């Protein structure tokens, strides 16, 4: 009865064009585990001026949500979870039993399992659940309970995860409320708000190590995509003369200012600029002089570093070192191809799946 028999010749209306950028077949990533060292997450997003002193968040973080617990028959767990997501749930989580071995004859006294689900606050939870149940042929609508989500619950849990991190010998990243484990080391004090860059991520580590090797004293440093400001601050600690941080996120700027103060860096020495994002009108340039910096590091993502390559390069003096990270090793060839016309002595450092590419900007006189 299937349509199968009716399929003849189709014009090539390739649906994957709608979701893929470059006609690449979508692959799936079974991936990365983070090391167990717990860490506080920094993420910044805020337009609100009322940030608490300990955490920079935004309305979107404290946005209300619904926390729904649903009792689901075990045998339909997978299809029901998928169906819930189709019909309005934002997320679906299932606690696992420790014992997965069938051989142990684990006693499954209960035939039901609890699903913890998050719904947007305006969603009709009962309707979604019943539609989801209906779509997989469940006779009864599962029992469920709705509660208002408590954002303090998850925000606080993540704050608690932050521990001091040792990047290299005598280089530590320390949360604001902890005293440095090694007082004589170079200690960068951070508030784990919600801006990226707490030192634990491989890319931050790679960039910090690169920076440490490059800064001898007196350099002008540009941190493109500054996040929490960790690199800009580290540069100062290593002896740079000046640091400039750029980010498209206003909260990152705020977070960096706060972190600079924690490290006793006067505001005049750390210049910060908000880069125009796509939503802003173009034509507004960052008020920075070109060819001004001895070291430029951009730890962002593949697409921005590709699109902004000329821009990032323009701020570097000839002979300056450029570092690019936030890149997976499989994305490296694209980045090298994009940057190699402008860089020489390209080298690559790797931690796990992540890489940091660095090179020296070629002088004005480029061979044709």
């Amino acid at each position: 009865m299937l349509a199968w028999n009716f399929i003849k010749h189709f014009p090539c209306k390739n649906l994957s064009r709608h979701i893929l950028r470059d006609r690449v077949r979508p692959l799936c990533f079974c991936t990365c585990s983070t090391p167990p060292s717990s860490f506080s997450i920094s993420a910044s997003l805020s337009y609100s001026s009322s940030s608490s002193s300990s955490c920079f968040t935004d309305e979107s973080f404290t946005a209300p949500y619904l926390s729904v617990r649903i009792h689901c028959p075990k045998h339909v767990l997978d299809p029901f979870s998928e169906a819930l997501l189709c019909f309005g749930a934002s997320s679906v989580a299932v606690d696992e039993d420790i014992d997965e071995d069938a051989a142990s004859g684990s006693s499954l006294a209960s035939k039901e399992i609890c699903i913890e689900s998050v719904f947007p606050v305006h969603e009709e939870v009962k309707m979604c659940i019943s539609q989801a149940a209906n779509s997989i042929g469940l006779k009864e609508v599962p029992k469920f309970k709705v509660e208002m989500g408590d954002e303090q619950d998850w925000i606080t849990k993540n704050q608690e995860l932050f521990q001091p991190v040792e990047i290299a010998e005598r280089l530590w990243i320390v949360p604001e409320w902890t005293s440095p484990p090694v007082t004589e080391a170079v200690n960068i004090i951070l508030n784990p708000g919600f801006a990226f860059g707490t030192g634990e991520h491989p890319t931050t580590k790679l960039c910090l190590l690169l920076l440490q090797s490059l800064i001898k004293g007196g350099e002008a440093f540009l941190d493109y995509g500054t996040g929490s400001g960790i690199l800009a601050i580290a540069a100062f600690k290593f002896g740079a003369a000046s640091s400039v941080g750029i980010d498209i996120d206003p909260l990152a700027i705020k977070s960096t200012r706060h972190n600079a103060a924690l490290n006793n860096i006067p505001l005049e020495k750390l210049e910060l600029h908000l880069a125009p994002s796509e939503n802003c009108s173009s034509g507004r340039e960052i008020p920075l002089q070109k060819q001004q910096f001895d070291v430029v590091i951009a730890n962002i993502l593949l697409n921005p570093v590709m699109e902004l390559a000329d821009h990032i390069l323009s701020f570097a003096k000839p002979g300056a070192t450029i570092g690019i990270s936030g890149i997976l090793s499989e994305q490296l060839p694209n980045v090298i191809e994009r940057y190699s016309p402008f860089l020489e002595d390209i080298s690559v450092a790797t931690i796990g799946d992540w890489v940091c590419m660095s090179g020296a900007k070629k002088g004005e006189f480029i061979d044709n």
Partner: protein
Amino acid sequence: MAAAAKEILTRRPVAATIRLTVPAGGARPAPPVGPALGQYRLNLMAFCKDFNARTQKYKPDTPMAVTITAFKDNSFEFTVKSPTVSWYIKKAAGVDKGSTRPGHLTVTTLSVRHVYEIAKVKQTDPFCQYMPLESICKSIIGTANSMGIKIVKDLE
């Protein structure tokens, strides 16, 4: 080979499995990612950076289906799949939501051609690669029907 054996021997106890939809390249620690992962003490920024890096090849904001395995030591792994079938169906049909009374009220119709196209994309997902296209099509039609969207031979 050796890696697989080693993995089985050192398989970490699983705390939870979390499923959610996240826009490609647009993961942020705010809801829904925040509460969903934060409950299990997973490193939100690490997930966001990782997810965003791995979904750079998709058009920004395409909703990706993510399955995260959270381990008891707060580490995690995740897989990313192409958008959910219902997303494709809605996009192909040009509607925002399914019918409020599926089975009774049909919102719109799609042709079998759409079903075929969607099936071809879904077949590239892991776990679906060895499924016959016909099975995938059946599943898509089922989902469409439950959304109040009828499948017809040809749209004229």
